[in-house]
């Protein structure tokens, strides 16, 4: 029922390579699936008899929960493997584990992994669709898509919006996927963060504007995406500390006032309140963080529908 003419790739590894038509088709499909979650019986038979395997080799609460809810609402059978409960702890390689999963003939594999490239690695070697639920610092395409859906629902468009992404860009797969998706749909993206959390080549590679202070990125912004600071990384001395970070980069009401008066604030969660975002901003009406969560289920339902239920479509 959605954009029958589009050819879909076998896997969703990142948003690179998906055209604006594909991205829009996914968002349109997600809009339709949102309605399922509002019904009294929140379930459709779309993926009945299909097996979706979740292979989470890195801790995740939100993404995993969201994918599971999405698969269940589509009536798929689901099976979860995590690193602690699987043979990865016994020294089995990623390839071995994947081949063993494949021998059970799943209809899709959803992978979360701490190593950049792990999703691509499996996509190249498995015959079933592989959906990337976050790999290292590389990509988190479903997060970016749910961010796009959230922005489009609030702003009515993506094209022409000024979007500021602020935080630890270097280690952020969310930032990378958002830079790709937002640029593909015509937004003007600015990124800001401490130089020690920035990588060279972003302007060339992603066509974004790079700042080392948050203020110029926030100036007149329509959308603000704050990234989670991984406090555990502070041992690497990328920044003097959480308090200093909050002073220079934290989003507080004063900094928020630099943005467009109707700017919305997103965060992939979980939020370190008082570090990257003050509690006042977190709870203010412009914060749309909980909308992101419900849009996440819809986006993941759309992706499972498009990639799993349409074998004739993914002849990439």
């Amino acid at each position, binding site marked *: 029922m959605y954009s029958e003419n589009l050819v879909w790739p076998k896997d969703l*590894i990142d948003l*690179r390579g998906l055209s604006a038509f594909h991205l829009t088709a996914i968002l349109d499909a997600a809009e339709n699936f949102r309605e399922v979650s509002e019904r009294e019986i929140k379930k459709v038979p779309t993926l009945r008899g299909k097996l979706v395997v979740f292979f989470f080799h890195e801790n995740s609460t939100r993404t995993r929960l969201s994918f599971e809810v999405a698969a269940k609402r589509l009536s798929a059978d689901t099976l979860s493997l995590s690193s602690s409960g699987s043979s990865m702890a016994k020294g089995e*390689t*990623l*390839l071995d584990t994947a081949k063993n999963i494949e021998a059970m003939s799943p209809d899709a594999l959803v992978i979360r*992994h701490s*190593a*950049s*490239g*792990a999703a*691509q*690695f499996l996509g*190249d070697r498995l015959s079933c669709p592989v959906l990337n639920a976050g*790999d*290292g*610092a*590389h*990509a988190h395409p479903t997060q970016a898509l749910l961010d796009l859906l959230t922005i489009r629902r609030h702003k009515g468009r993506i094209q022409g919006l000024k979007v500021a992404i602020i935080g630890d860009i270097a280690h952020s*797969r969310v930032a*990378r996927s958002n830079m790709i998706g937002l640029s593909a749909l015509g937004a003007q993206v600015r990124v800001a963060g401490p130089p020690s959390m920035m*990588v*060279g*080549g*972003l302007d*060339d*590679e*992603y066509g974004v504007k790079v700042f080392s202070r948050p203020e110029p990125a926030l100036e007149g912004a329509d959308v603000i995406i704050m990234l989670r600071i991984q406090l555990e990384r502070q041992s690497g001395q990328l920044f003097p500390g959480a308090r200093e970070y909050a002073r220079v980069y934290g989003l507080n009401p004063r900094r928020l006032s630099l943005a467009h008066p109707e700017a919305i604030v997103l965060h992939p969660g979980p939020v370190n309140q008082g570090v990257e975002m003050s509690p006042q901003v977190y709870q203010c009406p412009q914060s749309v963080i909980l909308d992101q969560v419900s849009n996440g289920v819809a986006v993941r339902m759309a992706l499972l529908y498009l990639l799993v239920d349409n074998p004739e479509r993914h002849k990439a």
Partner: protein
Amino acid sequence: MNSCFIKNGRVIDPARGLDGPADILVEGGRISAVEPQLPAPDNLPAVDASGLWVMPGLIDMHVHLREPGQEYKEDLRSGLLAAVAGGFTAVLAMPNTAPPLDTAPVISGLMSKAREIPGARLQVAAAMTRSRKGQELNEYQDLRSAGASAVTDDGSWVTDSKVMRRILDYAQVCGLLPLSHSQDPLLAQGGAIFEGRVSARLGLPGIPAQAEEIAVYRDLALAELTGKPLHICHLSTRQATGLVRSFLARGLSVSAETAPHYLFLTHEDVGDYNPNAKMNPPLGTAEDRASLREALSDGTITVIASDHAPHSVLEKEVEFIDSAFGITGLETSLPLMLELAREIGLSPSNLAELMSRNPARLLGLPGGTLAPGGPADVTIIDPELEFTYNSLDGFSKSRNTPFEGRKFKGRAVLTMVGGEIRYRWPNSSIL
């Protein structure tokens, strides 16, 4: 019987300024005459080299043969056979084995084992410091007596400048060439590929070009301080190449090598996490590649070495960040260099200098020339032969190459070591 007659070839021997038609008489494993139109001896087998290049045997002064310790990746036999198949009559094995090549018994044992193998000659670079830890010097005279011709802690940089100064001072006394893997290990730490737009795209930690530049500068400064020879391994960046050029202009006796992959590939070849484009130093930008090519042409880089680094799928077919650094190179090095020679206008003599004469001179090895009296180490090249590279056809135990399936024009068709034919391209009509 180690004797034969190589006729009708184009003989290239830059040590004697030769490039032209000549015949070569090999007797008792040695070159006994090189002249145009030598009378053909009746009783010797003849090799017809019509249309082929006859060069002094090629020497690859940077290979990892993995023995002892990691024989599942490569061993002396597979490595030395791969070498002759690639046209090399001698290779210099790096000491980062397990245990490392840092004592005389280990080295002499390895060398005597190699003499039984009908492949390339084995030469050894011994570890510079005890257990390759960069702290205490090994017993260089003992290593030299066991057969080593160079010292290096390849894979690691000697970070302590005072220790490196002592190494440069002392190595020459024992006739050993110090080779430096010049890279600041702390700046490079954790990096997987070159720091630039590809690492930004793939979300991989990068190794900045300055990790090489800093270390090369330190090493060159110490070579200037001591006035002693120094060889820089696998140059990969524009910045470090420029440093070598400027120190050479000051009259230092330093030399530098690069590997064919740095002359052909860039970090863009990592693509979507191709582990066979992961090596250390990492593949740089197109600018780096261009400056390395220029440095070959202007004489800043005087040696081509493959940095043959075999790894099994166990090390390579894993998460990219955990994938081992390095690619195989012995069987692709010469075909790549023949391609490059056509692209940038290097003569056959230039190639013979880069791949035979200069390594022989730097390491003090016999060979590197076809002068009468020397060992009959000869590489015969068909510059027109077209073939598609398939690592399965090769001798190396490992297949970690980014050049799988590449179409080449030109390769070694006969490799002779000490007058013995040790490799012949199977489809060749040469004998």
